[in-house]
């Protein structure tokens, strides 16, 4: 069956099986920033933003995304330039192996879209569904706070 949707502001039509999860469909169509982790909604490696809300794509039926507006990590940069959030992750060493990073970035991006002035507890809550097995959580949380600060200045 056909699935019509928007990914990173581009209109797309994907050929899918009714049984596919959103994770299957994203990876099969080249959005490999969407990582395959636990498959049970626990780790957040597969996080994507669907209509403004971060969800676990591994437990999200792809058919639910008809006409949806999706953001993946590929969509965070503009014309080859990384977003402030991505820059801060690099600058502050919030990445080691990087497997959790696309999910972390999208959870943080979804937060900042809704709340450009987050408190520390809001950032911790937003990232609480993203497991990291190497960097830990302090640096990613600090990077999101720093990005929010700089984005305010940039406006």
């Amino acid at each position, binding site marked *: 069956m056909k699935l019509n949707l928007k990914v990173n502001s581009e209109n797309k039509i994907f050929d899918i*099986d*009714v*049984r*596919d*999860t959103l*994770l*299957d469909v994203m990876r099969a169509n080249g959005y490999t920033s969407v990582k395959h982790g636990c*498959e*049970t*909604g*626990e780790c*957040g490696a597969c*996080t994507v933003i669907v209509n403004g*809300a*971060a*969800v*676990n794509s*591994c*437990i*999200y*039926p792809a*058919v*639910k995304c008809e006409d949806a507006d999706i953001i993946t990590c590929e969509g965070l940069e503009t014309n080859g330039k990384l977003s402030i959030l991505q820059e801060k992750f690099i600058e502050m060493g919030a990445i080691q192996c990087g497997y959790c990073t696309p999910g972390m970035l999208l*959870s943080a991006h*979804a*937060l900042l879209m809704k709340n450009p002035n987050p408190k520390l507890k809001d950032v911790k*809550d*937003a990232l*609480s*569904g*993203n497991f990291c097995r190497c960097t830990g959580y302090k640096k990613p949380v600090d990077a999101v706070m720093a990005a929010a600060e700089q984005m305010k200045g940039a406006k």
Partner: protein
Amino acid sequence: MQYIRDLKKYHWPKGPQDAVRLMMQEPCAEIIAGGTELLVSGLKGKEVNNLIDITRAGLSYIKKDKKTIKIGATTTISELQHAPVFKDFADGIISAAAAKFVSVQIRNAATIGGNLGAAMPSSDLAPVLMALDAKIFVCGKENKEFAINGFYISKRKTVMAPCEIITEIELPLACGDDKTGYAFQKIGRTEMDIALVNGAAAITINAGGEVKNARLSLGSVAPNTIRCLEIENNLLGKKLTRELIAAACDNIAKAIDPKTDVRASAKYRGTIAKVIATRLIEEAYIKAGGKI
């Protein structure tokens, strides 16, 4: 991963009656809302050829009138968490329970109807809805209405008949001059994990500080979320003290039936259940204006 090997067709009913009609007409059909339970552990061993998605069936809303708050079954946990009406209503226990509900990603998809329909003993909403004396509205061949106390009948089973769906949850608004205080508690291994023990309480007192009405519910300590009626009765008509609360909870072992699993032993759950019950009563009593 193809989440359901036998799935053939995915349906989008326009309303609850339409969903019920599809359930009756399609073989091996299941209701899906957020899918967070269904895709992870809800379909073990079941053959499912048809999924009926009710998230576009007009059941996502929170409405307040003079006497009640009505919550549509497909309202998400995030929507409950952030709804302005739940910031103050019942000392904020609905948004408090929603905020403790795993992660943002799950809260954005998971629904209140799915939470009650899945009938898990660890549900974070069921204890709260029991303390609030919620009603559950169900649509099937006919429309039915159930009190949440009694909605669960055994492990992962509710009073609902096949081909019935939850459409709405109704909460009564407090009336009269008596003051009611509310509390929610959850103990988990981590912030993200499901509850080892959770619970909620609502305690109403009169001007003299005597308990006029009490509701205490506990989760994860029995096959389903339970009301602790004997403890509630022990509190009635009394001005509470720490000693009195401890004595009222003394026989809690009779009310619960905890099990050992990967997360905790039955013994641990039993011990913690008493601690949680005590804390809940104390907190709700103080919030009602009682002095301890």
